């Protein structure tokens, strides 16, 4: 067994988590040597390319949603910390509305309220459903990023502002050279946490007809129509999401621990 020679492994992780490794090895061994005879697993293998493609769709949506949400959220967040109330107010409303609306409602909103096609000049640009879902997730993402940004700026002690002012920096220079660089480091853990949550949120995409992992699993389950297969395929869905989100959340915890001391 692998755990008998942990010294050869470069990282400390396997040594600290032997139980998890044994479990993983057991599952893999069983899948390789025990499972193939069962028709249920044969069906799973048959469906696995489709499942992978579906999960690819989830990941694409999540990456685009966090990207759009981050850009938008930083803009909104910048407005939210401005000294002028006239720019603070719309930012505040944006954050409150999109942070407190259920994600599914926002997805329905962007899917059924946004136009299916956009008329620009003579050409028609059509929005596929998965793009609309992406926008639906980008809205709450932006509100959360704005909040994370505002929180990070507020967490920089006022003595940093004072020290920079005493060195004759302008407000804009303090923001650019002193505050922002310190913010991004503090924002990284909550931002990655948000990304993991958004990835889980992409499971809602199947509800508006996007061919994602859940949708594929549903089709597969209906097609094969065996209880054992249905159980297995939803376990696989769970395992895929877990395999993707768990490392992110562990890495986030690692960053939080590291930054707690600096």
């Amino acid at each position: 067994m692998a755990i008998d020679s942990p010294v050869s492994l470069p990282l400390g992780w396997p040594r600290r988590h032997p139980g998890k490794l044994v479990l993983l090895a057991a599952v893999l061994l069983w899948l390789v040597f025990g499972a193939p005879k069962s028709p249920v697993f044969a069906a799973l293998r048959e469906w696995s390319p489709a499942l992978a493609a579906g999960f690819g769709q989830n990941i694409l949506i999540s990456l685009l949603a966090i990207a759009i949400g981050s850009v938008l959220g930083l803009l909104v967040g910048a407005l939210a910390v401005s000294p002028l109330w006239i720019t603070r107010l719309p930012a505040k409303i944006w954050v409150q509305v999109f942070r407190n609306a259920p994600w599914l409602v926002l997805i329905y909103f962007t899917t059924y309220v946004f136009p299916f096609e956009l008329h620009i000049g003579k050409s028609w640009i059509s929005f596929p459903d998965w793009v609309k879902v992406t926008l639906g997730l980008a809205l709450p993402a932006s509100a959360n990023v704005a909040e994370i940004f505002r929180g990070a700026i507020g967490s920089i002690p006022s003595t940093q502002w004072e020290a920079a002012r005493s060195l004759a920096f302008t407000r804009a220079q303090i923001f650019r050279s002193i505050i922002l660089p310190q913010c991004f480091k503090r924002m990284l853990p909550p931002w990655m946490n948000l990304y993991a949550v958004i990835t889980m949120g992409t499971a809602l995409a199947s509800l508006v007809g996007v061919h994602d992992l859940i949708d594929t699993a549903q089709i597969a389950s209906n097609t094969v129509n065996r209880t054992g297969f249905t159980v297995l395929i939803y376990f696989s869905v769970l395992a895929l999401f877990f395999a993707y989100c768990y490392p992110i959340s562990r890495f986030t915890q690692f960053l939080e621990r590291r930054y707690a001391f600096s």
Partner: protein
Amino acid sequence: MPSPETRVGQPLISLRDVHLSFGSNRVLKGIDLDVQRGQAVSIIGPSGSGKSTILRCITGLLPTERGSIRVGDTDVHALKSEAQRIELRKRVGFVFQQYNLFPHLSVLENLVIAPRKVLGETATNAEKHARELLAKVRMEHKADAYPGQLSGGQQQRVAIARALAMRPELILFDEVTSALDPETVGEVLTVIRELTEEGMTCVLVTHEMRFAEDISDVVYFTENGLIVEHGSPEHIFQRPTNERTQTFLRHALGDAGRRPVASGDPFLLSNISRYSLSV
């Protein structure tokens, strides 16, 4: 306008009847204070008496309500825009109790950033000057360290070098040793002592009474937003005339901190009278 007699001695800093409140809390109730060019002036007094507030007013970090503050040819109380106050702060260094170094920048970058961004110095010049200053505060071996990796005394010496990097006309020190471990206080005081010996104009808020007595040209005692008494260190520490000064010094110095007088005779009358008066 400063009154004529303040122009006579041409003090570098001159405060007249400065008032300031935070809401209903009247913090400064008419401060008069003069600092000549090249002098070291200490401000002592109980905490909450407005010492830090005085320093913040001098460099325009806080606006005054009444009275006048002049630094060189600048009427600080009359400055209207942030741009004008920035011009003032280029000439006035400030060192804080909590060092307030920029934690995301290395020691060298902490010294270089303001001359580069604010004064527009070239990278080469700013870095050369920064390394000279680090050598001066005996921190050249830590140029590439980050503030979090340094002891309090080391951080404070870097903070002093950071203020010096702007080539200020004067430096304000706000209780710069109060947050330090006792064993690192000395290294910071040595740096300040050297600065005063080189003729840098320094205003120090401090609880280090012996140090203040040693290096100051003038000592001010504040209480409750007022200057209670000021004069030579000898006057304030050996022959304070005001009863409040006496009480404060008795608590601040204690028996251990009391400095023996020049004659070395511990039973000198002036020394004893201080105690008998304040009982």
